[in-house]
């Protein structure tokens, strides 16, 4: 649809209002509960192992531009870096998007400063490789094989390069923790990494780790909206089953006409 229909206006405004209300109420200090995401403990374990082995940590925030996914991934990587800094360990962070670079460099510098170890932070550990997907992948693969990091943290938007990075990490025997909202790449992280944070859990993980009221509130708002959506779908199915298409028709859509058009065309095989 190029412009909103009335059902679209209603749904969008109601959903938006719920989410914004949840965020605002959390910012005003309402206590909110988020269940623990399994796999988060793995982060400390992986940092600890790198320290024991005296080898660096390699992390990536994927190919995303400066959007929320990338910023949330950076928040996770900074919390990793803080722990690493306390043990005096290095974190390498190759970057694919030029605009993300200065932001990432700042974030890591702050993490090291917060841990009181700004002396061991090297700006060059955060380096731009390429905007181009496979040039980036080739660059990261090279770094992994040369630097032999003990653990890899892969958080953010990933595409096909996920497996190139994760298998090279696996080959050198690194502990790997990954988390991405990119559905198609999760299976490969599952096959090659030790711990994987799946889909939506990515948003929850940042909220859980950072305990930021905004994120917690947003997550609760999203939960409510998802609940409403699920209820609407189930209700719609039940009503439709008993010959009452009210909910079904609410989500009206011009495509139906299109499907019927092509069903009627000659030679479409019915």
């Amino acid at each position, binding site marked *: 649809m190029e412009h909103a229909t009335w059902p679209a206006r209603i749904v*969008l405004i109601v959903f938006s209002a719920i989410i914004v209300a949840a965020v605002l109420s959390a*910012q005003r200090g309402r206590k909110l509960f988020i269940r623990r995401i399994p796999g988060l403990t793995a982060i400390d374990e992986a940092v600890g192992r790198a320290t024991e082995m005296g080898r660096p940590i390699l992390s990536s925030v994927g190919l995303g531009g400066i959007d*929320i996914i990338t910023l949330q991934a950076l928040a996770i990587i*900074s919390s990793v870096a803080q722990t690493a800094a306390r043990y005096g360990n290095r974190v390498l962070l190759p970057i694919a998007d030029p605009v993300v670079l200065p932001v990432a460099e700042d974030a890591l510098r702050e993490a090291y400063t917060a841990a009181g170890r700004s002396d061991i932070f090297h700006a060059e550990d955060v*380096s731009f490789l390429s905007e181009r997907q496979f040039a980036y992948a080739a660059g990261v693969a090279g770094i992994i094989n040369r630097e032999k990091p003990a653990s890899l943290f892969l958080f953010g938007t990933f595409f096909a390069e996920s497996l*190139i990075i994760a298998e090279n990490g*696996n080959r050198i025997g690194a502990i790997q923790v990954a988390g991405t909202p990119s559905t198609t790449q999760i299976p490969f992280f599952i096959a*090659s990494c030790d711990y994987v944070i799946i889909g939506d859990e990515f948003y929850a993980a940042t909220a859980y780790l950072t305990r930021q009221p905004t994120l917690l509130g947003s997550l609760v*708002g999203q939960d409510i909206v998802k609940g409403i*959506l699920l209820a609407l779908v189930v209700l719609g199915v039940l009503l439709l089953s008993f010959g009452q298409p009210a909910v079904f028709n609410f989500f009206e859509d011009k495509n139906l006409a299109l499907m019927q058009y092509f069903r009627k065309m000659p030679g479409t095989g019915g």
Partner: protein
Amino acid sequence: MFRPVQGPAVWGYIIGALVASGVIFFLLTLIPGRFRKPLIALITFLAGLFYALEFFWPTGRDDTNFLTPFIDPAGQMAQVLQAFALGLGVYSLVSVHLRSIARQRSGWGFSVVLFAALFAIAISGLLNAYRPNRYNQNVFNFFFVGGLQALDSTMFSIIAFYIVSAAYRAFRIRSVEATILLSSAFIVMLGQVALGQALTNWLPAEGFGANLRVENIRTWILTRVNSPAVLAVDFGLGMGALATALRLWLSLERGSYFDREL
């Protein structure tokens, strides 16, 4: 005021516009720290409001409203501004490798190689665009087809090797989850290649027995099991995206990037 100008006079106007920009820049530097965040929030809000209102505002009979005519200029502006951002990447790449050459750090020779490749393709591409002839076209093709395209598709195809080692290592019946993962992958793989399909092509092509043909089982898995699961993940991500958009638009976002003093 905004009328096209013909002839060399246009340069006068362009310089005028740049001077005006300089004045605006100077005015911006005068803004005290405490007004900076509200200004940024306002700009974010207005930029978002444009597309939001254009979508929500009731439309007339021709399905347009008062903002629709501005969609096209906004699109062109976004294209041009996005293009200017490329320089950020070029700047950081060049500075890292120039430093490595200047200090003759180990492997600085590779930085020289990088620069050679960078200039070769950029210059031959531009030459070919401005002076298209067979010579320029061939030189550009050498780097583009022979180099970049080959490297790109090779690096992508390398995943085929990694997928074999990952499947061999990870698809073991060690846990319930691993076993589930393995079994659906196994059936899908069988059903998607001709040789696998041949295993069950003795089954009838129509009627109930056809359901047991491996390619039909695969389609069933993809459409009836995989799609609702993916749809469920999508719904969650969709709500996340809406929430994200709202937090950004209304400048509700907090955290290191957004909290920093400006």
